């Protein structure tokens, strides 16, 4: 895998894409390895000790033609507020690309991509990549209400299944419910092969989807989150519980993308 490096590179654009969600586009240095869906970067949002640590964000898009990369981020605290204040030509200090990518589906499988909340970035990146490789994925995306959904033009992402907790747009309910009814209504025999799930979003959604995938015998690739220190595998800070003797895996190095069956989902405290 091409290796990571630190780049200080200019912002190209920074715009609101949904309530509290922004898309930051920045120049991608020519010498930098091309990021793949599922991989992430860390940003130092200000040269200060508050916030102290770099913050991780998944790539949401990469464009070879204009050498730009993007992330979609939600306003949460200090670092994301500082990101939101960045203007074109401001430098951003990134460490990238980091972590594992989503394994691309076998040609005879049907990829179903599921995003909730801040999981939207990597899922849209994967969707675009698959489409560019002529594999039409089905995208299911959830938000609290209509305002939390970014624009998802059908000509770019195919027919997207949108869900909102309050029913203000699309399916009224969670992405897990939407997935269940999608799987029910769509006979598996329509496909030459199996379905495969790609997920990113809040932990309860991932855990519930994992259980549904187990039920249906479908493989699910989940992109996880954990508070990070180094983001390069050195500090053991970003551990998540996994099955097996090692007990923990590092999100920054073994992940962020894991086969959902390797994860120890007992607890919801991360």
């Amino acid at each position, binding site marked *: 895998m091409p*290796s*990571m*490096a*630190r780049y200080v590179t200019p912002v190209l654009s920074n715009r609101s894409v949904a309530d509290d969600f922004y898309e930051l586009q920045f120049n991608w240095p020519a010498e930098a390895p091309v990021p793949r869906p599922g991989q992430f970067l860390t940003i*130092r949002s200000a040269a200060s*000790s*508050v*916030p*102290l*640590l*770099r913050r991780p964000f998944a790539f949401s898009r990469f464009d070879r033609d204009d050498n730009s990369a993007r992330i979609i981020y939600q306003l949460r605290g200090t670092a994301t507020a500082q990101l939101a204040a960045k203007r074109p030509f401001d430098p951003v200090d990134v*460490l990238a690309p980091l972590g594992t990518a989503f394994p691309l589906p076998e040609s005879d499988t049907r990829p179903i991509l599921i995003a909730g909340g801040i999981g939207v970035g990597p899922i849209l990146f994967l969707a675009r990549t698959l489409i560019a490789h002529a594999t039409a994925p089905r995208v299911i995306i959830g938000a609290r209400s209509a305002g939390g959904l970014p624009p998802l033009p059908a000509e770019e992402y195919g027919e997207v299944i949108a869900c909102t907790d309050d029913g203000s747009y699309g399916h009224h309910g969670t992405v897990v419910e939407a997935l269940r009814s999608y799987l029910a209504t769509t006979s598996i025999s329509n496909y030459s092969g199996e379905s495969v799930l790609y997920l990113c979003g809040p932990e309860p959604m991932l855990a519930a989807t994992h259980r549904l995938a187990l039920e249906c015998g479908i493989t699910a690739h989940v992109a996880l989150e*954990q*508070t*990070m*220190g*180094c*983001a*390069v*595998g*050195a*500090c*053991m*800070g*970003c*551990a*998540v*519980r996994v099955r097996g003797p*090692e*007990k*923990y895996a590092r999100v920054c*190095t073994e992940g962020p993308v894991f086969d959902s069956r390797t994860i120890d989902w007992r607890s919801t*405290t*991360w």
Partner: protein
Amino acid sequence: MVDLTVSIGSGTLRNPVGVASGTFGYGSEYEKLIDLNTIGALFTKAVTPESRPGNDVPRIVETPSGMLNSIGLANVGLERFTSEKLPFLKSVPSAVVVNVAGAEQRDYLTVVETLAAEDSIWGWEINVSCPNVKCGGLALGTDPALVESLTSELRTLTEKPLIVKLTPNVTDITTIARAAEQGGADAVTCINTLVGMLIDTEHRRPVLPGGTGGLSGPAVLPVGLAAVYRVSRAVEIPVIGVGGILEPDHALQYLLAGAAAVQVGTANFIDPQIHQRILEAIEKYGERHKLRTVREIGSILL
């Protein structure tokens, strides 16, 4: 040109800027990111006899100008350290210092004894101060008698530089430093992390599952500087300063306070190239003040 080398016991560091234990893994993790040649000393993640999975998660939380960690000495253990990590470390030109930890005295002796013959290991940093291990750990580093006896036992096992890493969570760090010196240590490192805690008021629980963790980062800079200032006046052996360095000026402060060398910990996460910036600042500072050796910086404090 300022002479950057630093003597510690029987060994010499090429320069006074090291990377702190637990923040730099076993070196290979940073290989792609920075030029390892410019590091003065690489202090490995703690090595214990057995591998340890580490503490429950989450293990890190940010605090004002700092962070708490509760890694719990997660490490591959002696066996896999030798087979998987040492081969890479052999290729590193910087001094490789193995950070040694354990639950009891025996564990420390086992690690040093087992690795004693490894040429690629420059020296030992004895971690008697990790706040995240229940049995041993903190208690050991707070008792001068235990520190002295452990140090002198280790001294019989190795001629290599033997460095004892001190905890700031004591009433008088100079008594522990003197105990280490008495036991035959070649240097002491100040400071390990402070005991700290943060509570998630939304979820009504400590953020770290174990309750408390170890505080590091710029928040502790003043505490580390005070420790080095005092300890370097209490012992004859060199003091290695660590704690809160985020800017080259912070490292210069440690050298002025009396440190013979410094380590960068948390700042590696934020700016992996920081040791290079520090090195340049030290050279400039030494030249500006017309010093021949980096050691002289401590002598120009007014």
